[in-house]
Structure formats: C-alpha cells, structure tokens
C-alpha cells in the first residue's frame, strides 16, 4: 500500500516539478464560477501542483463567464495577472488576437510530463483552432461539442434503428419519433446562440464551412442572396411546418425546452455537450444519452464529420510577472492525469486525446476523434467580427427561426445590415 502511495507521490512530483521556482504566487483569473465542478477540479489541480512545488501558490479570482472583459479592464488598470482562461473564440477575437497574450509556441513544443511534446497530446484539429496568424497564443484544455443530443430509448421505440447521416434520413427519423407520440425536437426560443447552430450547420453542410465568413466579408452583402441561404432557411422552417419542433416552443424560455427532454416529452435537441450534465439529476435513472452529428444535406459541399465546438483555453496575459510559472502550471494541467480528473469529475470533454470522457458524452468524444475539422462557433464569425456575429447574424436569425420575419426579410435584412456594417466600420 505504502509502495503504491509512494509511486503516486513520485508520479505527481515527476509531473509537476519540472521547473524549480522561487517563492511565486500565480495570479489566476478564472472563467468559471467557484461552485462549478470545473472550478473544483482546477482548485484540486492547483493544490496538487502546490504540493509538488511548495514555493508556488495561487491567488485565484473566480470571475465566471465575463472573465475576459474583467481581465482586460484589470490589465488596463495596471493589475498583473499571470494566468487566465476564456472561451477560445473570444480569446482569438480578443486578448490573443490583439497580441496581448504571451505566445505559447515554446510551451507547445516543450516536453510533456507524459512523454513527447505538450502539443503531441492534443486533438490535432483542436490545436489547429488555437493557432492564429501562425502562432499559438492560447491552449485549450476543455471543450464542448454542438451536436444533436437524443434520448436513445425514444428513438429506438420510434423504430429508428440507425442514426441518420443525411438530412432526409434525419427528417424521416424525426417524423417517426413524432408519430410515436413524442415531440421530436426541443428548442429554447430565447437563446439565440443555441438556435443559430441550425443555420450554422445547414450552411456548413450545404455551402461549406467557409461560406458564412465569405458572406459576412462581402461588403455589398449580396452573398446573402446565394441560393444556399434560402435552402438552409427552407429546411429549418420545414421542421416547424412539419410539427417536428412543437409550436409551443416559440414561447419557451430556457430551460423550458431542455426540461421537456428531461421529462421524456421530447426526444432530441441541438445543443452543446453540457446538456447531459445539466440534466444529469433531472432525467430518470437509466436514461440513455446519445449524440449524433448534424446530418449532411444531399448535394452539399460540406462534410458530415465537421463538428462545431466551444472550447475553453488558458492564456498568459502580456506583462505577467510570473509567466514562466503560469506556463509550467498549464503544462501540468494538460497532462494526462490532470485531464482525466477534469473529464471524470467535471464531465466535460478535454483536450488531451488519450483521455476517456464520461459515458454520457462518449458519442461526443467519438465525433471529435472522427472529425475532419473542428469548427469555431458561428463558423469563425465570432472570432473575426464578434459584434456582427451576435448583434446582426444571431439576432436576425432568431427572428426568422421563430417565424417573426420571413426568409426574404431575413435575406434582405442581412444584405442591408452587412452593407451598413462595413460602411460604418
């Protein structure tokens, strides 16, 4: 027993004590709220790291999701922050994109405690997403996938024996679910960034993942008149017209939609892989979760294996007093044992490709492993033009998605607003 303990300790020591630091306090401003399981795992990792490096302590500020904004204000006010985390797209469009983060290319190429380099452990597509202008300014450590999550038992009961990979197959499967007496698709009407994934995926499948960025960058706005946009809007409108998305969903405020999934009233929802965790204690025991890739639209230019993700990354702000120590902690947090702890205790997908994910999101891991490419939120629009992405694209789409404007009004509106955006920029 003591031998095992000793081995464990030496393993921790081996993983963490790669560099000796004098008295150091790493100031870490966090993307998580303290009571969240991810924060609890990070706390445990910091304790573990400090145990192996007694001269290193942490001063943590749990800011929650607005962390990057808070960090930027604090940095502007002269506060020194050694380590922070935020969503990957937000960072690429913010601190990292503006050159206000320490380049981490050296860390990526450095030795990992598990052997090989730190970069070797990543899903290649994920690390590629972290790269901006040929340099890595952030390192993702956890992420979610956007997929169609479903109640496997209900699909089985409806006679859906094979998970569809085409749009026609998907619509047929949803019709079968509806005919079995269960609502097919849940949506939250007030969460624009959930609903936008219908259009993101449809455009990516029909016209390829680059189309959206091209449409936004066309200063005349005319790319929005491309037939791919009309087709995508028609396909999502048909889900409502066919009753696959129930009419009452138009009035749903989060979490009303996902509650219907938890209570067995609806079979599927297009959402991030946080859903099984959010509903973990609300679904009945033995609930069988599944997640399918967004189906391929017949004749489209996209790839059914392309998956949209939402990743959370570490970054070291420029001017950090203890940048080296912060990077050493990142190295430790990306090690297999640390990542396994994150996957097991916080039930989230992790960056280290050798780590198994929790059972409820095992389909998500498979999708990531098989992905040809991992797509950014809003297909890169959020990184490139964050204000356009949320104030124009998401806002306009939610109106057309909920039937408040027609497809033509959406297209004309996007043409005009894109033109206006570039004129005012």
């Amino acid at each position, binding site marked *: 027993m003591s031998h095992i303990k000793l081995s464990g300790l030496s393993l921790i020591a081996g993983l963490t004590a790669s560099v000796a630091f004098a008295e150091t306090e790493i100031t870490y401003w966090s993307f998580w*709220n*303290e009571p969240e399981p991810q924060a609890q795992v990070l706390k445990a990792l910091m304790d573990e790291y400090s145990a192996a490096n007694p001269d290193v302590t942490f001063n943590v*500020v749990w800011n*929650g999701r607005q962390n990057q904004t808070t960090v930027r204000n604090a940095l502007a006010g002269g506060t020194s922050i050694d380590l922070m985390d935020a969503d990957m797209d937000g960072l690429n469009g913010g601190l990292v994109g503006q050159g206000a983060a320490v380049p981490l290319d050296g860390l990526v190429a450095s030795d990992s405690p598990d052997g090989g380099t730190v970069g070797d452990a990543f899903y290649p597509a994920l690390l590629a997403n972290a790269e901006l202008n040929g340099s890595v300014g952030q390192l993702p450590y956890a992420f979610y996938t956007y997929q169609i999550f479903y109640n496997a038992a209900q699909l089985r009961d409806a006679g859906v024996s094979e998970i569809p990979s085409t749009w026609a197959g998907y619509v047929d499967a949803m019709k079968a679910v509806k005919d079995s007496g269960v609502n097919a698709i849940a949506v939250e009407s007030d969460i624009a960034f959930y609903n936008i994934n219908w259009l993101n995926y449809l455009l990516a499948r029909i016209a390829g993942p680059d189309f959206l960025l091209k449409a936004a960058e066309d200063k005349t706005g005319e790319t929005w008149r491309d037939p791919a946009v009309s087709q995508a809007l028609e396909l999502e409108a048909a889900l409502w017209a066919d009753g696959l998305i129930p009419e009452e969903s138009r009035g749903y405020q989060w979490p009303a939609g996902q509650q219907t999934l938890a209570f067995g009233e609806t079979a599927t929802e297009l959402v991030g892989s946080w859903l099984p*965790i959010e509903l973990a204690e609300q679904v009945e025991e033995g609930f069988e979760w599944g997640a399918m890739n967004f189906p391929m639209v017949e004749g489209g230019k996209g790839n059914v294996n392309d998956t949209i993700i939402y990743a959370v990354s570490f970054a070291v702000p420029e001017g950090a007093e203890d940048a080296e120590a912060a990077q050493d902690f990142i190295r430790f947090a990306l090690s297999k044992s640390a990542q396994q702890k994150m996957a097991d205790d916080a039930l989230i997908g992790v960056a280290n490709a050798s780590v198994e994910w929790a059972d409820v999101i095992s389909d998500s891991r498979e999708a990531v492993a098989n992905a040809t490419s991992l797509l950014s939120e809003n297909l890169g629009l959020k990184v490139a033009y964050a204000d356009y992405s949320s104030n124009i694209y998401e806002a306009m789409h939610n109106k057309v998605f909920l039937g408040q404007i027609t497809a033509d009004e959406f297209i004309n509106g996007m043409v005009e607003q894109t033109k206006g955006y570039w004129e005012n920029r």
Partner: protein
Amino acid sequence: MTLLRRLPAYIAIWAWVAFTVAAILWVVMSAFKSKREVLRSGLKPPAELRWENFETAWNVGRLGEFFSNSVVIVCLSVFLILLVSTPAAYVLSRAKFRGREALTNLFVIGMGIPIPMLFIPIFGILAWLRLSDSLTGLTIVFVAISIPFTVYLLTGFFASLPSELEAASLLDGCSDFQTFRYVMLPMAMPGVATAAILNFIWLWNEYQLSLVILNSPENRTLPLGLYSLQNAMQYTSDWPGLFAGVTIVIIPTILVYAILSEKMIAGMTMGAVK
C-alpha cells in the same frame, strides 16, 4: 356603502399580498425540492425536505462567508449612519443658525445624485486611499451614501416633536447634548428605528456599489455571492441550490422587518394624526 367603495382597493391589496406570499412560498418550498421536482411541481409541497440544498448554497456557494461579510458591513454601516445622522438631523431641525436651510438643502441634493454617476469618483478616491476591494472601503461608502437620506428622514421626525419638552429640559439645567440624549432622542426612537430598518434593507440588498468596489471572492457580500451562485447553478441546473441561497438572503430582511415593523409603522405615521 363605505365598504363597497373601498372594495376595489381591498381586492388590489389582497391580490398583491397573495402574489407576494405565493412567490415567497414558492421560493422557500423550491429550496427543499429535488432538481427534478423543482420545475414541474409548482406550489405543491416538496416530497421530502432536502436540507442538503442549503448545505450546497452555504458551503459550495460560500454563502456562509458572504453572510458574515454582509452582517458585519451592514450592521456597522447602519450603526455609523445613525451615529452621524441622528445628531445632525436634530441640530438641523431644532437649532437656529445661519446657513441651516442651505445645509439641509445640501443633504436633500445629495439624495438626488444617481449612484452610478458616483462609481468612477468613488473608485478613484478608494484607490487613492488604498481601500478599494476592502470591506472597510465599502463600509465608508455605504455610510457616506446613506447619510443624506437618513438626515432628511430624521429631520422630519425631530421637527414634529413638541418644543415645550426641549425648553423644559433646558430650564431644568440640561445641556444641549443632555437634552438631545435624554429627552429628544428617546422620543424620536420610532423614527430612528424606521431609519435603521430602511437602511438595513437597502444595504443588505445593495449590489451595484459592492460589485464596483469589491473584487476578491473572500470580500463578497451576500448579493454578490448570490449572483455568483446563480451563475454557477445555471450551468449545473441546480435550481434548488439557488433557491436555498435566495432563502438564506431573504430571511434576515424578513426577521428584521418582523421584529421592528411596529416601530417602523409607528415612525412612519408619527404626526400624521393630531
């Protein structure tokens, strides 16, 4: 006939009371429910009392620590506010000196300044004093911001007290301070209690200033902690934990009101009927 005329008012008041009580009951009962139960069982009582929700809010959400911060800051602030405002209000309402009205009006003007306009100057001054992100700094700000309203409120109370008693005590040889301390202050106690309750309630629930001034998690007050808890609970769908947190926050306000409400009502209606 009178009853018939008053009926619409009664209906409106009782409907409002019923709505408020139902909302509070829903929150308190939800605090004892399971995650599955909470969103579908409406006003039904919980199947079993889940005290662990309170444990989650208290320990995981650190409401215990934030509760102590709030108790210390709010009690100290209310004490200091009354310590400064009561004699000030007495002097402004009873003493005769040049500039008294101008000084009183200055306090009234102070009440009219929107708090968000003060964020930057307050933050600047606290940073200069090295008191930003500190409970001491927040207490000073709470006291300073609350003084105009409290002085204004208490000036009205002192002005309504009969001047004969004041004259009698002076004739009996009391000094000005003794007249204030032993004659006028006891008579103004309903007013002081009203000022204490109103200040307690607004400072207990104060969010904006605390958010601007405090940064470190260990310095958070209860409203900031509750906001942090809400952020965390929405990502884990722990609504019962959140409702337990809300219950913890509202209980002291209800207790203070229950204990001091009679004095407060007496204070508010004081001088209304002659």
